[in-house]
């Protein structure tokens, strides 16, 4: 209980208190500036850009991870020969350190001789600058993040799909439902608790993404991959502007809380518990 208080509850509160000051970490004294840090953020165009980047990154990772995870789970659901192996391979990226695989991906995205551009040239497409271009850096980071998280979402859906009673599908077949109808009328509603859970957890994870951004782009070029957490990191541990950093942290907490509340509210409407 003590460590939990020390490293969870107390910091959360303390973080908010620091956000009301102009503390620079080194000096022992500080002034209380009340909401100045927040006002500065609201006025700062960089902060607006960061909010937009965070939204882009979050939607760009959460939606493909969830949709892809469900489709993969449907593919490997039946206990046919070799499915265990497919599941293992599809899940394997999740186990590996983001820092190390992000390094491997930076080599794949290398603009001149990287294999990503070689694949593009196969289709007659011009090579991209990837992490060197402010348009393509974010998609590159998103690709790595989705690659790493897909298998993880798949495992959750596998568990959910196994819990669906088979007689529901039989009943739907008797009613003359085709494959697509069964998918949208039976499968999707019945795995909705998992979708709901995954969307919250993946959103929180997207807000916490740091490793791949630090390795691949350091928030650049021109701030195009700087998300809220990255801004937080730069403010706190590069500029030592603790007031600004903790204000950003409060914004992150606020967004997560609001999302959780909205999602819980919505869940009453569209989540079907059995």
């Amino acid at each position, binding site marked *: *209980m003590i460590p939990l208080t020390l490293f969870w509850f107390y910091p959360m509160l303390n973080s908010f208190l620091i956000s009301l000051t102009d503390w620079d970490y080194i000096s022992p004294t500080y002034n209380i500036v009340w909401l100045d840090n927040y006002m500065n953020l609201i006025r700062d165009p960089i902060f607006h850009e960061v909010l937009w980047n965070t939204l882009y990154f979050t939607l760009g990772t959460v939606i493909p991870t969830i949709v892809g995870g469900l489709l993969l789970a449907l593919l490997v659901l039946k206990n046919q020969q070799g499915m265990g192996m497919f599941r293992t391979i599809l899940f394997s990226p999740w186990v590996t350190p983001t*820092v190390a695989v992000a390094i491997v991906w930076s080599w794949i995205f290398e603009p001149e001789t990287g294999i990503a551009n070689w694949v593009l040239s196969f289709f007659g497409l011009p090579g991209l600058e990837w992490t060197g271009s402010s348009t393509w850096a974010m998609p590159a980071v998103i690709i790595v993040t989705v690659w790493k998280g897909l298998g993880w979402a798949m495992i959750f859906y596998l568990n959910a799909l196994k819990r669906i009673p088979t007689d529901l599908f039989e009943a739907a077949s008797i009613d003359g439902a085709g494959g697509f109808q069964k998918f949208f009328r039976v499968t999707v509603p019945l795995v909705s608790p*998992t979708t709901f859970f995954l969307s919250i957890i993946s959103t929180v994870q997207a807000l916490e993404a740091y490793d791949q951004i630090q390795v691949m782009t350091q928030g650049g070029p021109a701030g195009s991959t700087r998300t809220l957490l990255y801004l937080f990191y730069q403010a706190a541990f590069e500029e030592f502007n603790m007031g600004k950093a903790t204000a950003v942290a409060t914004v992150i907490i606020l967004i997560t809380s609001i999302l959780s509340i909205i999602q819980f509210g919505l869940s009453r409407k569209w989540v079907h518990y059995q």
Partner: protein
Amino acid sequence: MNAKAWWTGSITIGKYLLLTFLSFLMFFPFLWMISSALKTKDEIWQFPPSLLPENPQWHNFLDAWNVAPFGLYMFNSVFTAAVIVLLQIISGAMMAYAFTQFQFRGRNILFALILGSYMLPVAATYVPSYVLLGKFQLLDTYTGIIVSNAVSVFGIFLLRQAFLQVPKELIEAAKLDGSSHWQILWKMLFPLTLPTFATFGLISFVQMYNNYLWPSLIIKSEEKMLITQGIQKFFMQEGGYGMQWPLIMAASSFVVFPLLILFVFAQKSFVSGINDQGIKG
């Protein structure tokens, strides 16, 4: 009937082809990592890239291993991760035991607080936790990393869920026999819920081994660095000046492979334990 059998047959084949293709796509970065690690410096800069190295440079692995103290980094990671997992298991089990076996005031509020904090990003705690570690003189120490990770909210949930599955009568019987809480927890609940403990231990170990941002804030001296920091430092040095991609890929390989091997051996525990059932309150 025959047409139908033919149809389902070709669907199955199509599914296998699709799965093989997708698995290849997912696994390709690892293959590419090894292939690149075995190339010469000239070969790696060829375009179009060659899929297989012409003359595998096995010594790249040895060279990379010797350029930076990867053995030390790896030891640091495995050591701190192991201690953290042990502490998380003990603290998680005790908390879960308290939540399932004791009636105390504010139990539900406390649990809701913990549940809520599971949803909040850890990053929000970094500045105050950092300051706190500074006050205790724990920056740049193993103790700092270990203490600040000693409790896992995820672990409390998972174990609480497992303990709830154990029949109440068993615990009552043990109490009548005069067992202490400590004995009930470790002699009875622990063996009964061993698979959950194993799953949690493995997942947490992997997370701690892979952890990067928080340790890199705490640890500054070279000889205490974790493997994730070590590989990033190596990448910055070699990638920045020498562009030693083959060595970088070789180094990435021995950072990634221990985990892949661990995963292959223990995949059942990973896969069965990751389940949202454990999260429902």
